[in-house]
């Protein structure tokens, strides 16, 4: 939940990278391994873990929960989309939401998650809250994976400045045995398996004390049923939404259409530009006028072919330039965006000026270059 300053500054044991970063990295590695789509961080504090996770491309829904709204607000703007996210919408969709509330309360917005992380959270819970915590997280939210980290009190002897607990707000700090028995009991109760690990290795020769931060990773053994059961009896929302950001994504038709139109017109412009500069080269030089004449013949040739075999060459007719959609579709970027030719036609319909039969993008060049 927070960076325990103590751990970083003690002269005897110094962790590199700092322990809090190691904890975040642990979560990130887990995300890379299991590729969850929906991730919730309970006790998200200043959102730094969420900020790291927003860059993980598998995640589509990210939620944070904390009992203190102010600490979330402090840096929540870092979770907003960046200008570049609007300029180049990504393939994946991403929604980030922050809720203000307690892990001792159930709220339907926490249902359906694949991974729930509780980093340095439980030791801040009052006894009554801790009692309700397993039921809320494992029983109600029931995600596929739960990660819980907490200080290992056996390690405290190596942290000289620690008197009782590592942080004044800690309600308890558990030994390895205490944490493991709580975790095993919880896992058994809600049909999860649990694996123990940690970050912050003890110095050589003192391996017995275990990791500085102990971590339990819980895997749900039963297939997900909770959601359907819960949704039968609609629940009241008890959390307050503090922040919500929906990232622009190509999954959203609006952004996809925009991106496709942009790409189509830009590609067509490039082709047109090439075509026109070729023509200009000819017309500029009086000696090559004959060449231009012959290329005109070629263009009419193309016209003929177009009728027969839908030629992909762009052509000029009078004051108009035609660039066949098939040509545009053959450009990799357009192709990747649309997938199918039909989709391309559908997305640009009514938004891009096309030839009368709808097979080509049309530009009028009559008024161009007038002022130059």
């Amino acid at each position, binding site marked *: 939940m927070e960076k325990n300053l*103590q751990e970083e500054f003690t002269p005897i044991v110094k962790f590199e990278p700092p322990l809090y970063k190691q904890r975040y990295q642990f979560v990130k590695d887990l995300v890379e391994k299991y590729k969850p789509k929906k991730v919730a961080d309970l006790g998200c504090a200043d959102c730094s873990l969420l900020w790291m996770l927003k860059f993980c491309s598998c995640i589509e829904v990210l939620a944070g929960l904390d009992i203190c709204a102010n600490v979330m607000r402090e840096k929540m703007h870092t979770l*907003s989309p*960046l*200008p570049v996210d609007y300029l180049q919408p990504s393939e994946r969709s991403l929604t980030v939401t922050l809720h203000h509330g307690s892990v001792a309360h159930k709220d339907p917005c926490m249902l359906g998650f694949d991974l729930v992380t509780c980093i340095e959270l439980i030791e801040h819970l009052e006894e009554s809250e801790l009692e309700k915590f397993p039921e809320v997280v494992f029983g109600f939210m029931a995600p596929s994976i739960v990660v819980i980290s907490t200080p290992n009190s056996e390690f405290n002897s190596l942290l000289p400045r620690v*008197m009782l607990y590592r942080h*004044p707000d800690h309600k308890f700090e558990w030994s390895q045995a205490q944490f493991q028995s709580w975790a095993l009991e919880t896992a058994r109760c809600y049909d999860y398996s649990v694996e123990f690990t940690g970050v912050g290795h003890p110095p050589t020769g003192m391996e017995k004390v275990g990791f500085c931060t102990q971590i339990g990773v819980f895997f749900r053994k039963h297939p997900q049923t909770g959601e359907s059961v819960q949704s039968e009896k609609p629940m009241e929302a008890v959390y307050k939404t503090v922040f919500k950001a929906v990232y622009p994504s190509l999954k959203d038709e609006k952004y996809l259409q925009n991106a496709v*139109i942009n790409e189509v017109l830009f590609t067509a412009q490039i082709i047109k530009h090439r075509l026109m500069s070729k023509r200009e080269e000819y017309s500029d030089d009086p000696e090559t006028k004959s060449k231009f004449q012959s290329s005109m013949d070629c263009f009419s040739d193309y016209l003929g072919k177009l009728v027969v075999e839908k030629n992909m060459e762009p052509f000029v007719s009078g004051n108009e330039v035609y660039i066949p959609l098939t040509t545009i579709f053959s450009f990799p970027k357009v192709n990747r965006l649309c997938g199918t030719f039909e989709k391309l036609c559908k997305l640009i319909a009514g938004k891009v000026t096309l030839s009368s039969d709808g097979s080509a993008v049309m530009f009028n060049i009559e008024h*161009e270059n007038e002022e130059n």
Partner: protein
Amino acid sequence: TIGLQVSSGLQDLSLRDRGGRRRDFHDLGVNTRQAMVHVQESKTGFSGKMIKLTTNHFRLTSRPQWALYQYHVGYSPEMEARRLRSALLFQHEETIGKTHAFDGSILFLPKKLDNKVTELFSRTRNGEDVKITVTLTNELPPTSPTCLQFYNIIFRRLLKMLNLQQIGRNYYNPSDPVSIPNHRLMVWLGFTSSILQYEENIMLCADVSHKVLRGETVLDTMHSLHSQVGEERFRDTCAKELIGLIVLTKYNNRTYRIDDIDWDNNPKSTFRKSDGSEMSFVEYYKKQYNIEISDWMQPVLISQMKRKRGNIQGSVALIPELCSLTGLTDKMRSDFNMMKDLAIHTRLPPEQRQRELGRLLNYIQKDDNVQKELRNWGLSFDYKSVSFTGRVVQGEKIFQSGTMFDYNPQFADWTKETRGVPLIRSMPMDSWLLIYTRRNYDVANTLLQSLFKVTPSMGIRMNRPNMIEVDDRTEAYLRVLQQRVTPDIDIVVCILSSSRKDKYDAIKKYLCTDCPIPSQCVLARTLSKPQTIMTVATKIALQMNCKMGGELWSVEIPLKQVMIVGIDCYHDTVSGKQSIAGFVASLNQAVTRWFSRCVVQSRGQELVDGIKTCLQTALRNWSKWNKCLPSRIFVYRDGVGDGQLNTLVNYEVPQFLDCLKSIGTDYSPRLTVIVVKKRVGARFFAEIGGGLKNPPPGTVVDTVVTRPEWYDFFVVSQTVKNGCVAPTHYNVIYDTSQLKPDHVQRLTYKLCHMYYNWSGIIRVPAPCQYAHKLAFLVGQSIHREPNLTLSDRLYYL
């Protein structure tokens, strides 16, 4: 300026998230009016017709007896981290209240705490007890400079709350972009805002701003440049196109300026992290942001970080693939079609501009959180913009060789009226060169024929030129110039087949420095349209005439023995090394002849020394022409950046005075120094026929939206075809002329009629535009001071 000192911490707070330089953008606390007795009472003019105007200013109101309470916050033991300091302080929100602004040491509250000194006790996470002492240091009235800065901070907070995205200094709405796919541009609509103390009220000046963003990365641009120019010129072209541009990165919300391109490094190169370890860019971006860099051969962009405090200078390396471009390049600006497409979206006519602004005000008014924040601070806005009356001064009469013209005030242009009338002073073209390439032979002849047709009525005597054919290479042009240009040549005309800059630069450099002869370059394409050739030839004839020392028209200048000076600066953005100040001073009573010099200075050098020398030579030349020294001097100083006013007042003006003193003990002319500013936020709209229109040329505003501590006014002098006209701001920072404000305003407007490259009224007084032209030519093409034998002619037009 006491308020400014105590608020240095506040500035921190305001511009912290920008990551840029911290400056006093609004020149607060520079009070120049108090030294000018004759405008103590009133600085307003009187002439002209009244006109009803609306502006983009909105009154800020605070509840009665409002004050802002400023506290110093101390920690014992001392706490370093700013975050920790805030966290510890806000454990006591029940005492301090929910509404506050805190930068780590200075705390602002809308209410007064019970005691002058409040002691609070907090405990850190380590269990350390900390005593916090909150001491009242200031009770700030609504108009104090610190309060003004504070309002601006609060307003920025509001914009952030409205989910607007900050780019640079302004805020933009990302959710409703306009895309211009033909050019891969995207335009975001946003707002500029500043809250200042104006004549009678504190007001928000808000304007619509457009941010042009480009839907491609720097790497994309590099690829397309490569395919355009080929390997050989690739690196140079990249440097020219990209250096100086502002980029946004894919992973954070910062903007960076590209200062250099490092071709020796690539994403595989390593850099030293703050902890001392080495890491490659590829690894770093993968680890930090999960971003895979796909092109490992791309160079690295370098951005210099400038921080004022402690003078920390460092540089940041950026990966082209992860940077998006913003804004327009010079090349894009010269692309007529692109600018036309862009103008449709950015040049909003008055009504539409006000409507967009109304939308922002509406958001502010409708948003509960924003209203709550405002209420908590005890502030509110008038949601209707301020209206007042301005004046439209009468149009000037244009004199040309004994003939007098009125122009149509609606167009502010006298091209038609003066056609076929002899010029005041026409220079003969007895001996001149016409240089062209073989394929432009026809074009050269067309130009010649047309010049023979248009020059007689202007009174220009013209012989057949020496027609010289050259190869289309820079060296060929230069060789011809070296062989054929002799001192008796009046002018050299070169027809160029492309707008390639190197040829133009070489010609100008040679003919401005090595062999000082006026020159005229013409693009062949401009001459290729039969329907416009006469207009073009007329313009070229006039321009050439000025370059040889001719005079076109004049307006009545009622002051005697007056010298008018214009100064503008050009900053070389590409190499970032040179700055050029153009200096132009009138030579005669009619203000139709000009003496021009420039100062080329390297980075870090002070401008004023050079300007002093310029003024001295200008005075010498004036006395040579007039057989006496001027009794009045007006300096129109353009090219002053935001926040530089103080420097100008404290260093440049004394230098001018020093210079005048050095001329002679009994010489004390009346001096007026006016700072000219084209980029201002204020917009005026005339209420005509129930709608909003651009105010007509000659509109003067000197009340309501001017600043009480300055002797300043606005003039709308030009007209625009589309969009909103931008007023020019004039700030008289020094004035011993004893002239009434009305006369200074009128003189200023008159001078906007005197720019010979445009037979119409322009945005700034002619000497400023001449100085700009000169500085631009030297900065772009010549890079050193031109030969002084040219200094009595407008050779740089």
